[in-house]
């Protein structure tokens, strides 16, 4: 995607653009020798990487955005080491960028500005304790999402958020992005599954946020920390809620001759008072791409397929599954298939969860969008999305969390085509506009990062943004943590030039 990256960068957020224009010092190893030496003294030499290959690697994440400038990359193993890193960074007047697996799609983990210290938490990857009496597990931030669920399985539990990247992404990243996933329809996104956090503040203090009790004392700082995209500090321990595995699961695959019928079925199911564990829609193009290599028996002649799953007790899930089938048929479903066993269920889900990889057979590059619209507007917005694609002479596929109105239009292209990048960005902006016009929001699970900063004022007034900025200020008055993200230009910490030495008494 190399050819895309450059243009993507130039079309990035306002803060990002300003970064590109910055004359700022270029990272020079000689200049930071003392910083590196200090970090290596606090950790170990091999866990502070300063070679150009490592820094180049950490200058990107899974997003299309380029232009990151990573400083030394630290791999702490303990909270104390994170504290030490934070204090050394402060002493050297350097920002820090927390990083999990780097699977974020909004550029949240890209280090901006003067070679920030990257704090990669991937070596903090232990499940510390399963505390069934308190209904939680204490885990370190580098634990991989799917590893956690597999670890909990013998105990009869799982961690509910299940992003498509769950084989790779970390719990710390899930906390930073308030991650979702197909099964968040019934169970809620990450914030509903985090009871307590240990975080290291930008000043190097260790803070316990939230608690194992239902109403921890004071303000819900845990609640605002989750989803703050690494701008309020570094997560070092997480108490995740244990969700009991349900004995009964039914997975249905419904086929439709129009996307509208599929969308109407989704609205109909919710209106009927059924809350499935998941409701996912794939359009014809993506279904065909997936079927080509998964061979799950997805119908390649349908305009859309709806993958619906209900869970609970054995008898009750049959009632729910029957109801979904009836609502589907009433909305012109051409076929309804019930997964016969776990193997068939796993195969159907494999198709859904690997959909983004499947498009490589069609075109080399893709740009995955993420907006949310009211469920009742799904069909109309999807039609508009297809029209946007036509207008911009692009191929768009749709695979999305239909149950909660979370669209994931996937723009597929070949970055070698002259002029295609401008059209890709134009289409992206139009999709965002269409979603907001329908009463939706900018992001359902990818976050803002550098991708959508410039769109924040489309959804929020200056007063709204000012108050979001106050949260940032309360945690991080000097913009040390992940500067240049989330907040649009004009707010503190958005413009990375504002990173300065600590004003006197600021930590009060």
């Amino acid at each position: 995607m190399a050819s895309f990256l450059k243009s993507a960068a130039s079309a990035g957020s306002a803060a990002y653009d300003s970064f590109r224009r910055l004359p700022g010092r270029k990272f020079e190893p000689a200049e930071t020798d003392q910083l590196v030496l200090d970090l290596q003294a606090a950790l170990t030499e091999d866990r502070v990487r300063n070679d150009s290959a490592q820094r180049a690697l950490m200058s990107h994440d899974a997003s299309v955005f380029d232009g990151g400038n990573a400083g030394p990359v630290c791999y702490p193993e303990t909270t104390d080491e994170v504290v030490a890193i934070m204090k050394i960074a402060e002493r050297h007047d350097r920002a820090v960028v927390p990083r999990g697996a780097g699977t974020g799609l909004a550029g949240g983990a890209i280090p901006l500005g003067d070679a920030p210290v990257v704090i990669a938490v991937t070596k903090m990857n232990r499940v510390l304790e399963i505390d069934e009496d308190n209904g939680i597990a204490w885990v370190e931030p580098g634990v991989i999402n799917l590893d956690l669920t597999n670890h909990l399985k013998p105990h009869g539990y799982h961690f509910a958020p299940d992003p498509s990247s769950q084989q790779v992404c970390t719990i710390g990243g899930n906390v930073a992005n308030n991650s979702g996933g197909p099964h968040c329809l019934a169970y809620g996104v990450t914030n509903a599954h985090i009871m307590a956090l240990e975080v290291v503040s930008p000043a190097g203090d260790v803070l316990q946020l939230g608690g194992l009790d239902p109403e921890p004392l004071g303000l819900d700082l845990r609640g605002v920390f989750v989803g703050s995209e690494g701008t309020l500090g570094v997560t070092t321990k997480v108490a995740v809620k244990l969700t009991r595995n349900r004995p009964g699961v039914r997975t249905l695959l419904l086929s439709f001759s129009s996307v509208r019928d599929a969308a109407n079925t989704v609205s109909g199911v919710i209106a009927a008072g059924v809350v499935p564990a998941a409701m996912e829609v794939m359009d014809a193009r993506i279904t065909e791409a997936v079927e080509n290599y998964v061979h799950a028996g997805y119908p390649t002649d349908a305009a859309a397929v709806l993958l619906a799953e209900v869970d609970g007790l054995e008898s009750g899930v049959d009632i729910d599954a029957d109801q979904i089938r009836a609502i589907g048929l009433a909305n012109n479903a051409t076929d309804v298939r019930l997964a016969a066993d776990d193997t068939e269920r796993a195969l159907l889900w494999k198709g859904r969860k690997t959909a983004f990889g499947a498009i490589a057979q069609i075109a080399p590059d893709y740009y995955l969008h993420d907006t949310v619209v009211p469920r009742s507007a799904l069909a109309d917005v999807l039609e508009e999305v297809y029209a946007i694609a036509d207008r911009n002479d692009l191929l768009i596929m749709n695979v999305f969390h239909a149950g909660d109105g979370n669209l994931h239009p996937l723009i597929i292209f070949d970055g070698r085509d002259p002029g295609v990048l401008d059209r890709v960005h134009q289409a992206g902006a139009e999709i965002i506009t269409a979603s907001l016009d329908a009463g939706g929001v900018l992001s359902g699970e990818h976050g803002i990062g550098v991708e959508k900063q410039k769109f924040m004022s489309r959804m929020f007034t200056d007063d709204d943004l000012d108050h979001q900025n106050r949260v940032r200020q309360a945690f991080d008055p000097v913009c040390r943590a992940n500067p240049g993200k989330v907040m649009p230009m004009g707010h503190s910490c958005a413009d990375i030039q504002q990173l300065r030495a600590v004003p006197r008494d600021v930590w009060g």
Partner: protein
Amino acid sequence: MSGDSGSGDSSSATLHSTDPVLREFAELVGETDGVAVAGGRTRWSAGGELDSAARVIQAPSGIVDYVPEEMIVTVRAGTPVAELHAELAAKGQRTGLPERGGTVGGALAVGENDVTVLGRGTVRSALLQVRYVSSEGRIVNGGGPTVKNVTGFDLPRLMVGSLGTLGCLAEVIVRTNPIPTVSQWYLASDADPFASYQAVMAPSAVVYDGTNTLVLLEGHAVDVDQQAGELAATGSFVEVGPPSLPTGHRWSLPPAELKKIATHDTGAFNALVGVGTVWAAKPQPARTLSPEVQAVHDRMKMQFDPTGRLNPGRKPGVNR
């Protein structure tokens, strides 16, 4: 820049509303003197003594918009929860707000969960979008109108349980969820409540008073029957009508601590097994924050209410 002019973009009209009712409330809140918003006064002592000089005002009331198939409702903060839930029940829905009297805004500001929190969800997860009047008298919007949203910092979470010390709640969008087909309470005086809680897959409530265990099962009739059978293995449960609501001081304990409830000086109590909320005759001993977390709290208060005019005298978490 005024709170409603925003980008001037029609696409954001729902968020940048110039609703005269909210404007009127913003004027009522004003910009300078001490002010407190009264809801139903069911938890009026929460947070300690209100500064006697503070003006006491009411938030606007009424259901603004209800779309059952979106599972959201837009409601003004002064609306009684009972009124809201009556309207929702007609469409087979409810919310995570507690049914104990009081208003929507009061319930959110206090953050107390319903007895049936395991079934209906927490208050903190119920709030999707919040419009409040800031200490500067501005209308501020946080969150968004969809069930899923990670756009920017989560102001709604910050507002829940903040006792109106960061802003005066004016209008909110709350998530709704379906009322189960069957709701049935069961009572036993010989059960181990912790065994009962473990025995059934998804109880909506397990309440223990030291002798009696009350369990609420909800869902399809077949599911409730099956779980009632599992429950019977842990005690001589009989079907009973809905119990009266527990009263008293509200404690917040880690759920595991309930196994040692006898070691706490609660007096008569009702404990929510699996949750950790305890309603007790005696108040919970004062809890404290670490100095580092307290410092973040203090900075947050300074950011949102630099002159300390919002619900003056009160502190979240005190005197519950």
